């Protein structure tokens, strides 16, 4: 299992569009993927779950990966956050 903290960098936060990008990327990996924010844990492969995070710019999330390809999944998803979802 890997855990990693990330910061939301894009201005709009985790709104519908970035949430969709995230969920689609997560679906490519076999590992389980959870996101923890303010003590609430949601499944990172669920669009409705990710939509509820209301994660604004500047907020910090903990990502947790568990599975055979956890290293790869973590790398790709952390990179997506680092790039600010390629969004404004």
């Amino acid at each position: 299992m890997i855990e990693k903290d990330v910061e939301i960098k894009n201005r709009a936060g985790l709104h519908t569009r970035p949430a969709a990008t995230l969920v689609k990327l997560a679906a490519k990996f076999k590992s389980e993927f959870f996101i923890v924010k303010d003590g609430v844990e949601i499944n990172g492969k669920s669009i409705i779950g990710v939509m509820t995070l209301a994660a604004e710019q500047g907020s910090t999330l903990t990502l947790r990966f568990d599975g055979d390809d956890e290293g790869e999944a973590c790398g790709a998803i952390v990179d997506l956050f680092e790039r600010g979802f390629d969004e404004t």
Partner: protein
Amino acid sequence: MTMTTTNEITLHGIAAAPGIVMGKVFVYTKHVPHIDEKTIAPEDAEKEVERLRSAVGRSEKELQKILSFAEQKIGNSKAKIFEAQIMILSDNVLFDSIFKRIRKERKNAEFVVHGEITKYQQLMLNSSDEYMRERAHDVEDVKNRIIRNIQEEKLISRFEGGSIVVSQSLTPADTILFSRNEILGYATDMGGVTSHAALLSRSLKIPAVVGLKEVTSHVHSDASMILDGYSGVVIINPSEATVAQYKRRGREMAKFEHGLNDLRELPAQTLDGKQVELVSNIEFADEIRFSKAQGSHGVGLYRTEGLLMGKDAFPSEEEQYREYKSIAEKVFPNKVIMRTFDIGGDKVIAHSYEEENPFLGWRGIRVALDRPETFLAQIRAMLRASTKRNIWVMFPMISSLKEVRRAKALVVQAKESLRAEKVAFDDTMKIGVMIEVPSAAVVAGDIAREVDFLSIGTNDLIQYLLAVDRGNDIVSQLYQEFEPAVILTIRHIIKEAHKNKIPVSMCGEMAGDPVATLLLLGLGLDEFSVIPYVLPEIKKIIRSVPLREAQKIAVKAMKFSTVEEVKEFLVGHVKRLAPDIPLPD
């Protein structure tokens, strides 16, 4: 029991979409599904799962139909709000846990669906973010749709036409579907001017008043109602006198709007023959049709940021080229002013630090000059699309002449690369600058010497000049178009441009404010670029006055020292010259 009376009741809400209508009320009560908790026999669990699967399938079909209907009626970009709902229907994590609970707890499908989705909805409603609460309504809409389909109830979307729909709230899907019934108008308890339902009713041209708080408790179906979407008022059980008054007002408005139709083909020209450009602001290609229908002959601001919506990466040069080309062709033989990306820096590269004050930060041309590859790709795309010679390019957020020179050098570089590749382009493509930073306004003369046109972006210019953040409720009332300092700045920009024999456009909201038209005309503004909706009114005012008189009005307006005096003075003149223009307030 609802309270109803036969007395005339006037309720004030928010004017969401213009128009006056009178008719019978249809109270639309949202289908609130009745959910019983039932235990199912172990052998029926799979049947229950199947029942849910086919309900989800039907829900998806409904939403796809709404999506395509919305695309036809309001355009692709605005219809995107329905896509999120469709995505939820294929959320495997959500449905796996629902299926698991049905099998394990042996509960009926609607009970489990309701329980599971409501959890998410509650989380969203608890958010302090308005956007997120709006999404909670989308989620509720999806939930109710699935449950209705499990219970195999039909979707009520058709009812007797010719009524005013009164409801607590309307989902975007309701707004779209009801519009097929030739309904007269919408009146709702909830909602603001930016709610999806309000935006959609404007696009659909259905008069609407929202935020009435308690309209549903005052009416029953078949009550009579007047809905005034200009001033945000509804009158229930109107007296004969009120009906007569509104009939008159309705006739005047109809005449006015009919007159606007006649205006469509007429030039934006003053009584003494001075013609100005009256063009529109757009963000997407599909807005051009409406803008033409409103009588616009060109585009004064095309916001290219629309291309970034719904994208995970910057659009390629090729993709941009296709879009710019299609817009240039649609607008031809008139011109389109394309503004290069006006975005914050975090779009291009993730910030290693958070900007404390992004409005004074890395945005617009600053980003472009620091990331020339992105800027060059955009300029190349515009140049390649410019073969009909009707594209003008404009740079946002310029604060000094040095930036203009650097941006122009990059245009030269883009041209050289195209020439080397033997690709055709318009070598005379006009280059202009948006004047929205006070420092650029001060040195407008120096800038004007080196560009082909200026365009005044009043929204940012006023914010920066008066040091007022419009989004900050505590100070937003200090944001005033008619602040004497703003008027003097606009006059300065126009004068400096004219000294250098180049035209000045205005693409901020002020250009579309009917109270400002006479002043701007008198100050010598060459081009008004406005949202297509207000085009006819602005044209009407321009056509109501000789230029010489507008100039006198402008000179007089500059003698006042307070916003209130300027406004009162200008409103008086509009009322005198164009009495049928509906003015705000």
